[in-house]
């Protein structure tokens, strides 16, 4: 929800409207361009200067070879910046660096500023921590940062003479880092080729601490490119005092031979990132990472949005690599692609990137792949994987700003049953509160929320309430009073409580960097204190960028102060993560037997550990439906795969056709929620009427049918980071033609290739097959094969989905009212044979809601159809333990009720009426139904109730 639409109303009421009719679309003037952020402007100018000098560019930064050491997996030393004043006298500034080779196979390059890290600087603001902010990794990284002592230096004597150092590291020491002192450069090699080059273009730049000269006119500024706005800066009439002066950092990273780079969400743009320095189809502005509440964001834009993950993947034929820029301050990323250079990197273009952050240290992680899956695993081992969500959170969510009363909520709930549509959670936006005071209820409309929750619980459905980080400054509001009294709010630069405006009017923001604030937050969620003792409560954290209506760029002033005496500018992009972290901890404390579910709008690297995210306030037009697919892909490859876009579009009123197409797309979003703005008309699935309601029902039911496979995909994401929504290059890593395709995706482990219809009136589409595998139309089993576009019909009632051969899909075909109510149902296996007649698949199953799985209470099975012997087998993938035995016992009544084999040569069947099933040293026959191949459709063999158990080893001889 939320958003500036709400704010627009608010602003107009409180501040009186200054503009006549507010135009639709993003208010660009609210947000900075690179030119309006002095550090970005200066570093871009620095890049231009270097670029204009070409080979003659001499960076003032170089490693002092005398400082370089290598020990215990760490290469370290000092980078010196040489300053020359107008008299020609030179001086040095020292920036100690470390190149750490991690046990997990990644490398980490850290550069700090010596004077700020060491002895006290006279005149440095005493209310601030003197050192540069170096805790982005502390929040983002939960993985092992132990240096790999088996990394070896293999520098030759000759190299040492020229101050070049070489370290072999990684799995089997296949990776190599070559560090050059002057010009400063670090090249990362794999398979004898460079894949990532740090400071290839010499744009490394760190503002060292310098107090504002008392007399600017007579100051020697020969080392400064542009002194404007270095010591204070204002935007939109709001002053930033910049007490630490300029402290930006910048580094260029080249991906040689890589034409495509992906990631750095969140942007409403295509998946393969564009160049940002002009030219047709390119941007003129860098991609910006700065969490903001952006009202009616525009599509195809590099503007900053609600979340920031400074993770970029470069992919080329045969190789994938990535970097993670662990910095929490405002960050801009310029991207350019060089002309092909046959001499150095073959015929492909290279991608050059330029990373610019306002403050903090340089802390960059390099992942050398070699393939996308390895990259995601390496990144996940650092920042954590998606935590396994409760299964009901993978069902359909019904939201609206607002369901106004208990009656309203229960009527919507009852209508789902009336129209026989399953759903799992109903959501309450801000209006449920008493005057936007979180943890309170508007009693006139919600006199008995506990009872309402009990009614929802009858069908195992959940209630989601919104809780935001701004707390109304009002005497008598206990949550605020406690916060204020204990000084747990974000502070101003003079140490007072910071107050700004948000939904409730004047508010304070909880400083969730503070461990005491987290404890305080836990208190607020205690059962009985909030929402009785019902355990079907889920939480929605919104506005956590943070959104401050009267703040600069709709956020907190950069010179406000957080726990640890860090300025907001240092921690901005992480604030949202810390807030969700506090909520998750609070919910775990509230109900330790339940896996928490928290949805967030703002995010950072590592937020995937904490819950789900959505793409914020989109609009009910086809453009936003279209852009959702690349946005989901970008988030997914950057580790945060539990993502969705508001189905229907938040602002405005979708046509019935758009709404229907959006549900069809949304059924494949990892997070599946319908949502609507307060000024929009009701649009629950039954509102549009026939034929739309039936088509929407079918889409939602398909979602529920596929839940076992979706849950299995989430399970995989939770231990190796492979996302739910997958780009073409994940299955076809060598097909260059497919790298930029971002209007279709593979879904989990199912092999389903989904292409949402995003055009009004479309009744057919072209799906691109990225590889030579056989594909079957999911609905009628029509066979498609051969790389390239295939035309398929897609009337309104049909979602264009192809099933790639070689995968086994696990479904639950019985329709229930919610995900939890399906837990006793039998399973259906859909075996889509590949062109060699083989197929395989995985099923992960557990109780779906408690943390017992982490102690082994789960089922993990592997299904394989073998073409050689025509046998489908089920085998366990887990070690036998007490916990899984007892879980298996709890599901010993769950059987495989149906097996559908697509693409089996009917001549290979032993008989046309039965197959033989083997389980537990017994065998019996099971009837089959054979639909022979015809009209371009594959043969379909359906095994009728083979009476096999999901928890047992078994096989079927076809």
């Amino acid at each position: 929800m939320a958003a500036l639409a709400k704010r627009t109303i608010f602003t107009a009421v409180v501040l009186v409207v200054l503009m006549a009719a507010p135009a639709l679309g993003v208010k660009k003037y609210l947000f900075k361009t690179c030119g309006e952020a002095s550090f970005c402007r200066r570093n871009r100018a620095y890049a231009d200067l270097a670029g204009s000098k070409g080979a003659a560019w001499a960076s003032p930064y170089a490693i002092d070879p005398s400082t370089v050491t290598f020990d215990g997996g760490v290469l370290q030393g000092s980078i010196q910046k040489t300053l020359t004043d107008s008299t020609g006298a030179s001086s040095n500034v020292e920036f100690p660096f470390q190149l750490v080779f991690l046990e997990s196979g990644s490398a980490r390059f850290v550069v700090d500023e010596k004077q700020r890290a060491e002895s006290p600087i006279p005149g440095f603001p005493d209310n601030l921590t003197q050192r540069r902010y170096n805790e982005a990794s502390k929040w983002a990284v939960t993985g092992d940062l132990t240096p790999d002592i088996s990394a070896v230096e293999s520098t030759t004597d000759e190299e040492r003479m020229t101050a070049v150092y070489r370290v072999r590291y990684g799995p089997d020491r296949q990776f190599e880092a070559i560090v050059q002192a002057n010009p400063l450069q670090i090249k990362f090699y794999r398979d004898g080729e460079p894949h990532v080059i740090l400071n290839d273009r010499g744009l490394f730049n760190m503002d060292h601490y310098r107090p504002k000269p008392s007399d600017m006119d007579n100051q020697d500024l020969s080392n400064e490119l542009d002194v404007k706005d270095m010591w204070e800066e204002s935007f939109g009439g709001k002053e930033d005092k910049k007490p630490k002066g300029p402290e930006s950092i910048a580094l260029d990273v080249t991906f040689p031979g890589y034409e495509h780079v992906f990631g750095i969400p969140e942007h409403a743009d295509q998946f393969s990132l564009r160049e940002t320095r002009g030219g047709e189809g390119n941007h003129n502005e860098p991609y910006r990472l700065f969490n903001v509440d952006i009202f009616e964001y525009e599509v195809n834009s590099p503007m900053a949005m609600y979340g920031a993950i400074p993770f970029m993947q470069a992919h080329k034929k045969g190789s994938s690599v990535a970097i993670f820029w662990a910095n929490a301050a405002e960050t801009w990323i310029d991207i350019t692609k060089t002309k092909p250079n046959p001499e150095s990197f073959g015929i492909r273009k290279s991608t050059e990137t330029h990373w610019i952050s306002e403050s903090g240290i340089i802390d960059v992680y390099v992942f050398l792949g070699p393939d996308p899956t390895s990259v995601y695993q390496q990144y996940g081992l650092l920042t954590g994987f998606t935590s396994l969500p409760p299964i009901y959170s993978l069902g359909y969510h019904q939201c609206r700003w607002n369901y106004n009363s208990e009656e309203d909520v229960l009527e919507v709930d009852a209508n789902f049953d009336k129209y026989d549509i399953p759903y799992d959670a109903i959501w309450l936006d801000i209006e449920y509160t008493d005057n936007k005071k979180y943890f309170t209820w508007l009693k006139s409309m919600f006199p008995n929320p506990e009872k309402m929750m009990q009614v929802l619980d009858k069908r195992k459905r959940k209630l989601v309430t919104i809780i935001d980080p701004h707390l109304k400054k009002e005497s008598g509001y206990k949550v605020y009073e406690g916060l204020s009294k204990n000084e747990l709010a974000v502070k101003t630069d003079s140490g007072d409580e910071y107050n700004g405006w948000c939904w409730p009017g004047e508010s304070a923001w909880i400083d969730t960097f503070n461990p005491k604030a987290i404890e305080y937050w836990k208190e607020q969620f205690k059962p009985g204190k909030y929402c009785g003792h019902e355990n079907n409560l889920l939480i929605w954290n919104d506005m956590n960028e943070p959104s401050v209506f009267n703040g600069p760029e709709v956020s907190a002033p950069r010179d406000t102060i957080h726990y640890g005496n860090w300025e907001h500018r240092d921690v901005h992009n992480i604030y949202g993560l810390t807030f969700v972290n506090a909520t998750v901890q609070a919910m775990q404390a509230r109900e330790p037997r339940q896996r928490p579910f928290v949805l967030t709008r703002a995010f950072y690297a590592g937020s995937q550990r904490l819950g789900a995210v959505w793409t914020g306030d989109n609009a009910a037009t086809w453009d936003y439906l279209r852009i959702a697919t690349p946005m989901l892909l970008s988030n997914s490859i950057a580790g945060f795969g539990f993502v969705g876009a508001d189905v229907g579009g938040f602002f405005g009123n979708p046509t019935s056709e758009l709404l229907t197409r959006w549900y069809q797309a949304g059924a494949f979003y990892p997070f599946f929620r319908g949502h609507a703005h307060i000024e929009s008309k009701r649009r629950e699935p039954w509102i549009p009427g026939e034929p739309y309601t039936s088509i929407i029902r079918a889409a939602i039911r398909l979602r529920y049918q596929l839940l076992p496979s979706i849950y299995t995909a989430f399970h995989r994401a939770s231990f190796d980071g492979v996302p739910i929504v997958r780009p073409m290059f994940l299955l076809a890593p060598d097909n260059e033609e497919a790298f930029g395709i971002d209007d279709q995706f593979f879904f989990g482990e199912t092999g389903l290739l989904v292409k949402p219809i995003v055009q009004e009136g479309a009744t057919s589409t072209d799906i691109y097959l990225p590889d030579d595998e056989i594909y079957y139309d999911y609905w009628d089993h029509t066979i498609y094969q051969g790389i390239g576009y295939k035309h398929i019909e897609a009337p309104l009632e049909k979602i264009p989905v192809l099933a790639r051969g070689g995968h086994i899909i696990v479904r639950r075909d019985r329709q229930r009212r919610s995900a939890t109510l399906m837990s006793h149902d039998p399973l259906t296996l859909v075996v889509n044979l590949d062109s060699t007649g083989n197929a395989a698949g995985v099923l992960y199953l557990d109780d779906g809601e408690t943390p017992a799985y982490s102690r082994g209470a789960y089922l993990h099975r592997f299904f394989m159809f073998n073409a050689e012997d025509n046998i489908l087998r089920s085998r366990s993938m887990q070690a036998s333990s007490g916990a899984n035995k007892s879980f298996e016992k709890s599901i010993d009544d769950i059987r495989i009720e149906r097996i559908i084999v697509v693409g089996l040569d009917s001549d290979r069947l032993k008989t046309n009426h039965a197959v033989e099933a083997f389980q537990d040293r017994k065998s019996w026959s099971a009837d089959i139904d054979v639909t022979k191949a015809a009209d371009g459709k594959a043969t379909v063999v359906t095994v009728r109730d083979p009476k096999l158990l999901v928890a047992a080893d078994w096989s079927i001889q076809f």
Partner: protein
Amino acid sequence: MKISVGAFALALAYTGHEVLAAKSTHVRGVPDADQALYQPDENGNWACLNHPDIVLPMSRINDDYCDCPDGSDEPGTSACPNGKFYCVNKGHVPGLIPSSRVNDGVCDYDICCDGSDEWAGIVKCENKCREFAAEYAKKQAEVRRTQVAGWNARAKLVAKASSIRQALQKELTQLDNQIAVSDARVVKAKEALKLAEMQSSSRVGTKGSPLLGRVKARIEEYQKATAALTDRITMLEARLALAQEILQKLNEEYNPNYNDEGVKAAVKAYQEFKESDPGDGDYRQYVDITETDDDELFSEEQIDVDPDIVEYESYIPLQWRLWIHDQKTKLRDFLVQHGLLAERKPSGETASVANAKKERDAAERQNNELKSKRENVAKDLAADFGDDDVFRALAGECVDIESGEFTYQMCFNERITQKGKSGGPTNLGVFDKIEGDKMHFSNGVKCWNGPQRSAIVEMQCGEKNKILSVSEPAMCEYFFKIVTPALCTKPPDTDTKPKDEL
């Protein structure tokens, strides 16, 4: 999701041997009445009910696998997506539950009070039919009471609507008569004007035309006659008032317990007489003519005030002048209308022409008034007031409810308002139309930055008009649920009751 009365009646029809058959091969989830449909054929097989070509062994009925596209082979399990499970609900009304709710771990007591939908043991659902039956009987009785009371209340509304309609029709007839008279007056006035104009034109340039003298004489005659008639009418009115007073007294004070047909008929006739009072018409206008007449009307020199004012205007800036001229015209029209100023006429127009014009205008004005009144009455009569015209009786009647911080008032066929603790009422919409069980109100006060407010009122049968709830499903779009006798239908005859109670 109650089983239909028809199907249930069918169930009752089966007795005796059918029960015996059911005992041997009772099929779960199928009513006794339909058990016969689950008999094996001569080969011991069975065919899907709506797909006779799909033949299955008997063992496949309720084996928890869906074989029939119509779901008929799995009436007792959740295997088929489109099946229905029959709950016997002994002691209560049987129920049919979608098969997707069989064995899902939820006791769906609202349909299966006997808990038979959860036979697999995922959850234990005790039989609550005794409780539900009692509650249901109570509810049914209340429903029936409401239906009966509502139906009776509706009958009264219909009767009231009918008498309103009759009154309107009567009024229409009277208006038609008055219009006929008025039409004649207009024709006459126009002729008189024509005549006056002819005389006037023939007199141009001359003073004291002989025709003018004759007309003046004739008018004086008419004036005398009219004055005499007026006196007569005044006298008759006084006597009528006296007679009415006597009858009114009779009407109020007679003893209805004395069964005197003569008195009762007189009272009734008087009441009708009173209701049909046509009013005093417009004859006084004629009287006015006699009063305002004077010799000046016939003089040749009329004072025209206009030139003086025009001169004033020429001293005033243009933009003000236009405004003043406008105001001046309005003022003059007002004065003319109220007889304070002579109507402006082309210079040289005679007093007789002016007078004739005045009469023509008065006649036309009266004629227009009557016609517009007639149009309104006719429109009212033609308006849709729902079945039996029932809402005609409710139009204008209001009901209130307090909800949240507001009090809402809904007036049938008129408007809906919302009133906060302070400030005046906000118009949520004026009556637009009735469609089925919904009343639509639209064109309310515009929301800030939003649409005009509007409301939909969903009605169901109730003994009295009452708002049950109000909500705002979308911003500035309100939704009311009300009960009203207007929506009640004739309750089913009570002799079907024993079946219900079985």
